[in-house]
């Protein structure tokens, strides 16, 4: 009897799990439940379509529905899973009988938090997640003059930039003193703020949202610093780490979080370049490393720049996992080739600076 695998959620994780299960066991009976009309698209790409960097929403779909049918993955669309009975191994689905399973994968994704202020029932609040709603909102954006994004968290950065690219007067309201304050340090985020200013984005940090104001439809956001007129309010959007012309990357935690927890650390910073200094298109790369005193094992790393950030962030994540030290990193081998790598790798220079600070 082939195993019955039930996956709750039709996003990247759910479809990825279903695809992996199919690879491992070609005979498995795989059923996916999603509450939406579509599956396997990238909600993270939605802001880029709004910002006109990606021409259409169709590009965000990994494959058509037929491809999953042919792969033997039975996706039930617009079916909401209402309960799990782990004892009897049953999934309860709205509009269907209880479904038995041998293996269960829960990949239900995120749910929006209530902003916790009056006015959340007004029209004009854009919760970016569902691609069909995004297509409708994209038409609405043509007539929007002013937009307010609540919270410059990882979830809001992409949308701020997208709306500004669209020529919309964009305000971002955040109770923290800088963008992405819960995961990144202010010196890493400073170029992002400057880039937003160039795009005309108006930032309102250290500002609390008190209410969404309107009569049926939102017309303003009342904050601790006054009222901001708005045609739409973007509440939260999926994960994003590109803001303005900058990319931000990192691994583990930064100086702010280490300070908050009282975790001792050694720090090394550097501002380097992505290619040879004379090669066209060279960009700055700012690196900030944190290491454990004594062992000098890497415990955190942050980067901001305009190219080569993602790859370095991936590398740092692996370096932390493998217990790499500042010493290892300071004298690491690195590619030098004028179009793709500078003579001095910025991460190595940051590690060398960290070592120098320890050794006086």
């Amino acid at each position, binding site marked *: 009897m082939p195993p019955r695998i039930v996956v709750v959620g039709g996003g990247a994780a759910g479809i990825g799990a279903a695809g992996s299960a199919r690879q491992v066991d070609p005979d498995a009976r795989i059923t996916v439940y999603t509450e939406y009309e579509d599956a396997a698209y990238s909600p993270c790409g939605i802001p880029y379509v709004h910002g006109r960097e990606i021409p259409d929403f169709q590009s965000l779909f990994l494959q058509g529905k037929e491809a999953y049918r042919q792969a033997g993955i039975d996706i039930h669309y617009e079916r909401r899973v209402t309960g799990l009975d782990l004892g009897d191994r049953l999934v309860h689905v709205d509009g269907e009988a209880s479904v038995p399973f041998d293996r269960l994968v829960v990949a239900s994704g995120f749910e929006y938090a209530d902003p916790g202020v009056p006015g959340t029932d007004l029209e004009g609040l854009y919760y970016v997640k569902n691609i069909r709603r995004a297509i409708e909102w994209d038409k609405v954006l043509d007539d929007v003059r002013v937009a307010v994004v609540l919270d410059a968290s990882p979830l809001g950065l992409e949308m701020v930039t997208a709306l500004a690219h669209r020529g919309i007067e964009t305000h971002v309201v955040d109770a*923290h003193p800088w963008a992405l304050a819960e995961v990144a340090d*202010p010196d890493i985020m400073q170029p992002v703020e400057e880039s937003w200013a160039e795009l005309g984005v108006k930032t309102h940090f*250290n500002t609390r949202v008190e209410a969404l104001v309107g009569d049926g439809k939102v017309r303003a956001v009342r904050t601790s610093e006054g009222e901001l007129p708005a045609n739409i309010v973007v509440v939260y959007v999926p994960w994003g780490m590109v803001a303005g012309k900058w990319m931000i990357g990192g691994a583990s935690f930064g*100086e702010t979080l280490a*300070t908050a*927890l009282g975790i001792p650390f050694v720090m090394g910073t550097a501002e380097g370049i992505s290619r040879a200094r004379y090669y066209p298109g060279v960009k700055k790369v700012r690196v900030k490393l944190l290491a454990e005193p004594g062992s000098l094992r890497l415990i955190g790393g942050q980067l901001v720049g305009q190219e080569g950030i993602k790859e370095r962030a991936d590398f740092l994540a692996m370096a932390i996992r493998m217990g790499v030290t500042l010493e290892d990193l300071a004298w690491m081998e690195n590619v030098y080739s004028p179009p793709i790598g500078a003579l001095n790798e910025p991460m190595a220079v940051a590690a060398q600076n960290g070592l120098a600070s320890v050794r006086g």
Partner: protein
Amino acid sequence: MVTFSQWLRGNSERYLLESAQAEMARRYLNRPGPPAEPGLGPLFWRRVFVPVYPRLPWRLRRAVIQALPGSHRRSWQAREPSRRPPV
């Protein structure tokens, strides 16, 4: 239903982070920290908990952090360090 340890973690995380953000904002941006929330509860966390926390021995703080619920309790799988060349 929020358990005591979830309540403790939620509040300590929030107010310690708020204090650290204020310190970082002053240091790097010459900008003040987030405005203080009114009320006795926030006053306790800001005026009592936040100043006392860093004075506690690191071993005690570490033990409490480890005991609180959260993803930090799930670690990577331990592995033997391998420093020899692959061939």
